[in-house]
């Protein structure tokens, strides 16, 4: 019996109510290439993810590498022996990091020493032909190169089980060929390695040792390709697979036949003349010209990154060409012309529909936006759902659908409004053979029946052969145009694929520096001893450092974010420092003097003379007084009744009324105090004048304004603004950074490598603690030198406090990002919590000790208020460590508590 790589027993998996795997039992042989084939959404990815241990098992059992994957101990210890490459072009790569840095990061995750990483990276790069580009950012690589790099990242630790989920989807034929050659070479070197691959390309499956055909969450056949062909009773694997499908699924499938095209005449539907697109110095498209007749199916073939997509974008008006002209229906393209847009259907290469809307809602939205007549909408949406076999998924969100079904939805949207021209960028990437054929039949129907012009790009040779004409593109230039037959004949090759590769190799040979894969593996370097046993599941600083280092590089590569994170705080401090002032001054005051005597004027002069009041023009009537108070113009109005002077002189204690604007109670309180003060001055002046003996007040009261003798706002606002800034910015940075990994998919590396939750979180936190601390130091300098607020107490305590506080703030961000799944939710939650609590309940606007009710508890339950004690204490109150150690201790508890909570909430395995 052959050894077993993985044994799956009665495995079932549900997403909500949708069944992904239905009671699957299979034994997967070891030390060979195993292919998983089958249509989209039959559970291939789920099965692979469960075997790799990145998803939690719901029901049934998975035994891989001689152990039960349900057993956390075994899973942890086998993670270093498994490599998992998720679906999607370079989804687990970090686009701003270079090729070398990406590989280096993975090497560090597996605790490899510097020398070990270096020779491994050199070896892998040489083997994949990526060695000329170690310094190119991963985001700037073409799709095929990304996949190769992604594979290198998976192979860096010599896994025993390599799991590849659709590794070549969307990759051009040349790169695809190189990719499989690379796998073959690696297997030759490490014959014991088991490889499991999910693929939609049957010609690839052909070369595997053992295949598992899946449908509807079940396995319908297993065996070698020959066995499957024999069982399916067909000469090709494609046909055999279709024959193996249950009767119901097969119904309606027939071979694709392209009827000949009748030329219709008239101006060409699409014309490109010398189209050129430059991005800076880089020329993406270089003087491309072609004409596509009405009703023609025109195919674009070319390696990844050769300018196909850019050309298509220029034809849709998304990009304005740098040079040259595009014409649609004989007229120059006008990006603003809505009528033209209605005649064109466009499908982007990456999924660009709304993940948060259901499939049906997406279709309905587009039926409205394309202004389909109301009576036809419902019918058309239903027709599309049926045509693209999406009825079952109609009420699911595309986010939860496999790639192939997403592509079908995009296609459905592109053709929904019955456009005259269809521009489709790799429409069938990731789509299974049956669905692809059905889609082609639909396209051919459109082209031949309705005269729709179709311009598409593809990596499938059998699809290219169905096109009326093909254009071969490479490095921004068109290499050749013609029918499939013409091109094959011109090169004298047997197949279109070979012709295509021959063209590409010719073109590449001309270019200096570019080496599209070496024919032979690089000579094996002497392989130093490898320390694999050291991979422990215990806390490991090396892995933490790998994440910290990577995160730091990412921060440095995004100068805008870095600038925001350092300048934002300074701007905040300056505006808040100047702006927040509790000094109530310049109160607008006006008099309503109905007396107009010397006595009344004398009284009013006391108001006008006060530095707290700013005099406004006199009031002349009751209604005016009311109106001006209402309008907010006046904060204080003094009303002096008629006969004031007379009654005053008679000692009749005349009444004067002062009106305060109570809209802002704090201001009204203070203003009321000022009014009393003015009145008192007036009284004593009067008393002095009337020669009545002044009465000695019974008590002297001496106010000592401690900490802030001048009673100036800055001594309070500056220290507390530091509190506010250091919770807002660091928390936001960490919250987004983890949520971003979840959104882009690089979180897969956390799930499939030996790193633990705590290492991952601390690793991501560390660079932000450093950034936050640098930001704090700049704030400190501004506080001291711009605002003149010195640190009266212990500077060391302040620095220590700030460090711990930033730790707590970044940990708070981590906590938020552990339970939010999107960046938008992370930003939203962080903003609301930190601003509301930081501004209101942390001692910025009023002292921590005066909070009451719920607010008091919120304040106590959040780190900011405690740091305000430290900040105010060291800056203004002149305190030191001996006074503030309890607050420091509380902050430490917060920091540790947040990290602990985040570790618990962030799950290593996906649900």
């Amino acid at each position, binding site marked *: 019996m052959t050894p077993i790589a993985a044994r799956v027993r009665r495995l079932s998996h549900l997403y909500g109510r949708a069944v992904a795997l239905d009671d699957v039992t299979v034994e997967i042989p070891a030390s060979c290439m195993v292919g998983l084939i089958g249509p989209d959404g039959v559970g291939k990815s789920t099965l692979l993810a469960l075997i790799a241990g990145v998803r939690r098992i719901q029901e049934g059992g998975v035994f891989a590498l001689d152990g039960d994957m349900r057993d956390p101990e075994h899973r942890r210890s086998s993670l270093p022996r498994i490599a998992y490459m998720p679906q999607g072009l370079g989804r687990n790569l970090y686009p701003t990091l270079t090729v070398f840095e990406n590989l280096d990061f993975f090497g560090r995750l597996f605790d490899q020493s510097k020398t070990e990483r270096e020779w491994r990276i050199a070896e892998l790069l040489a083997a994949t032909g990526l060695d000329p580009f170690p310094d190119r950012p991963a985001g700037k690589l073409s799709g095929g190169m990304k996949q190769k790099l992604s594979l290198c990242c998976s192979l860096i630790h010599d896994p025993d089980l390599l799991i590849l989920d659709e590794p070549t989807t969307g990759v051009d034929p040349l790169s695809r060929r190189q990719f499989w050659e690379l796998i073959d070479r690696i297997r030759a070197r490490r014959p014991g390695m088991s490889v499991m691959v999910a693929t939609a390309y049957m010609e690839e499956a052909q070369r595997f040792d053992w295949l598992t055909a899946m449908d509807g969450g079940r396995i319908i056949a297993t065996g070698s390709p020959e066995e499957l062909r024999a069982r399916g009773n067909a000469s090709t694997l494609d046909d055999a697979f279709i024959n193996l499908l249950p009767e119901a699924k097969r119904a309606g499938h027939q071979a694709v036949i392209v009827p000949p095209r009748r030329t219709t005449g008239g101006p060409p539907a699409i014309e490109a003349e010398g189209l050129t697109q430059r991005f800076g110095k880089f020329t993406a498209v270089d003087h491309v010209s072609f004409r596509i007749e009405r009703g023609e199916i025109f195919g674009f073939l070319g390696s990844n990154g050769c300018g196909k997509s850019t050309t298509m974008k220029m034809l849709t008006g998304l990009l304005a060409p740098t040079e040259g002209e595009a014409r649609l229906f004989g007229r120059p393209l006008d990006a603003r012309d*809505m*009528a033209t*847009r209605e005649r064109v259907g466009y499908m*982007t290469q990456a999924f660009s529909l*709304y993940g948060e*809307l259901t499939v049906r809602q997406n279709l309905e*939205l587009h039926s409205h936006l*394309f*202004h389909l007549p109301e009576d036809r909408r419902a019918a058309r949406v239903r027709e599309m759902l049926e045509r693209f076999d999406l009825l079952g998924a109609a009420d699911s969100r595309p986010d939860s659908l496999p790639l192939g079904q997403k592509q079908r939805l995009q296609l459905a949207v592109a053709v929904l409004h019955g456009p005259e021209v269809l521009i489709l960028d790799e429409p069938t990437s990731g789509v299974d053979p049956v669905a692809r054929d059905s889609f082609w039949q639909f396209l051919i129907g459109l082209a031949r029946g309705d005269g729709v012009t179709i311009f598409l790009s593809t990596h499938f040779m059998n699809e290219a052969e169905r096109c009326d004409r093909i254009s071969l593109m490479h490095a921004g230039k068109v290499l050749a145009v013609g029918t499939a037959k013409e091109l094959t004949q011109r090169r004298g090759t047997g197949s279109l694929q070979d012709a295509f590769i021959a063209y590409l190799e010719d073109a590449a040979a001309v270019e200096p520096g570019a080496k599209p894969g070496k024919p032979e593996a690089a000579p094996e370097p002497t392989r130093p001893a490898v320390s694999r046993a050291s991979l422990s599941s215990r806390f490991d600083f090396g892995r933490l450092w790998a994440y910290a280092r990577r995160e730091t590089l990412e921060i440095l590569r*995004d100068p805008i974010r870095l600038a925001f994170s350092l300048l*934002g705080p300074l701007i905040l401090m300056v505006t808040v420092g*100047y*702006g*927040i002032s*509790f000094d109530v*001054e310049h109160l607008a005051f006006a008099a309503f003097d109905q007396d107009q005597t010397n006595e009344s004027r004398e009284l009013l002069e006391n108001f006008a003379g006060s530095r707290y009041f700013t005099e406004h023009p006199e009031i002349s009537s009751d209604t005016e007084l009311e109106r001006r*108070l*209402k*309008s*907010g113009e006046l904060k204080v109005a003094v009303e002096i009744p008629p006969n004031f002077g007379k009654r005053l002189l008679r*000692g009749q*204690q005349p009444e004067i*009324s*002062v009106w*305060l*604007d*109570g*809209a*802002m109670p*704090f*201001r009204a309180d203070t203003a009321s105090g000022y009014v009393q003060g003015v*009145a008192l001055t007036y*009284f004593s002046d009067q*008393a002095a004048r009337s020669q009545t003996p002044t009465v000695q007040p*019974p008590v002297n*009261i001496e106010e*000592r304004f*401690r*900490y802030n003798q001048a009673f100036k706002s800055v001594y*309070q606002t500056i220290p507390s603004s530091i509190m506010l800034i250091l919770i*807002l*910015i660091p928390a*936001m*940075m960490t919250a987004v*950074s983890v949520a971003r990994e979840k959104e882009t998919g690089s979180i897969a590396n956390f799930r499939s490598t030996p790193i633990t939750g705590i290492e991952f979180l601390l690793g991501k936190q560390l660079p932000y603690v450093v950034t936050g601390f640098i930001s704090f130091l700049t704030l400190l300098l501004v506080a001291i030198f711009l605002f003149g607020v010195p640190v009266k107490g212990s500077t060391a305590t302040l620095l220590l406090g700030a460090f711990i506080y930033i730790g707590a703030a970044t940990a708070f961000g981590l906590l938020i990002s552990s339970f939010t799944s999107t*960046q*938008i*939710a992370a930003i*939203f939650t962080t903003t*609301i919590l*930190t*601003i509301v609590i930081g501004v*209101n*309940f942390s001692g910025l*606007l009023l*002292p921590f000790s*005066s*909070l*009451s009710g719920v607010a008091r508890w919120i304040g106590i339950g959040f780190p900011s208020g405690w740091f305000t004690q430290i900040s*105010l204490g060291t800056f203004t109150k002149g305190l030191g460590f001996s006074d503030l150690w309890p607050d420091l201790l509380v902050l430490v508890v917060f920091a540790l508590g947040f990290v602990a909570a985040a570790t618990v909430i962030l799950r290593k395995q996906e649900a």
Partner: protein
Amino acid sequence: MGLRLANVFRLGIKELYSLRADPILLVMIVYAFTFAVYSTATGAKSEVENVAVGIVDEDDSELSRRIAGAILEPLFRPAVQLMPNEIDPGMNSGRFVFVLEIPPKFESDVLAGRGPTVQIDVDATALTQAGVGASYLQNIIESEASGYLQHGEGAITAPINLVTRTAFNPNHYSEWFLGIMAEINNITMLTVVLTGAALIREREHGTIEHLLVMPVTSAEIMIAKIWANGLVIVVVAILSLWCVVHGLLRVPLVGSVPLFLAGTVLYEISVAALGILLATFTGTMGQFGLLVVPVLVILNLLSGSATPPESMPDWLIEVMKVAPTPHFVSFAQGVLYRAAGFELVWPQLAALAGITVCYFSVSLIRFRKAITSFQ
């Protein structure tokens, strides 16, 4: 290139679906407009209330006990008796905002007319309460002392009778102020983040590119985002104003509700446009988050909803005029507290409208460029 309302409507409906798809967003919106408003209004009072006072009574006489007893709730917490050596730690830790020091032989000195000195230690870092609270304490001490002195003897009569009346909020309830200001701050915060992030998400997910090849204009996309996100926030804000601020906090809403509603809608549009404007200056969600936070805090703190706006330096007042919030704060205070009518608040409304138009135009100019250049 006309604006098609059907498109605007449909795209807006799509925004609403997107919002519904993320339950955390909805939870946070509800939290912000209920719990956060309530706790801010009731807990973060700026008025002198519940202030912690300590007293060092070295006299321990009837008069000194009378003074201690006169320090009453709700303004102050009952005074805590301290030993002289407890003053510094008590104030350093922020436990007390005020400490009264009554010297030995205080009572007899008062009776002898020697005018003894009472010292009030004030924690001057507690800016909002220090000034006003100290004057309250001063009044308490003076009136207790003179009351004690003059058993029935007529007090010195003031030459005039000063009557201070406070319009619009006679009892200086700070909930009235804080509740509505918290509403305004929430409107600003939630709208800016929601609309801005909605645009960034479209860009990061490539959906905006898809929209731009459809028969839909940039203006339609922007207006759809504004109306849909704005609608949600306005509806929740008005409900919250009615139920939480008016119902729970018992803040009387004296002004014209339709006028306030109209102003709120206009403000909502302006901050939504601000959100989009900020989004056109950033490429990723991470950048947006870092840009939006300082902007929101500045709008929150410097618009007159936290501190008296006239105490800011003049240049800052002028700078803040380009933001919609100061205008809206002054509009809301006028309408809701002072029952001001349209004839009094139209300048603020006009300013809001002007700002909205500016934001929108700049966003529109940047829109296409920002989308293609940040890819």
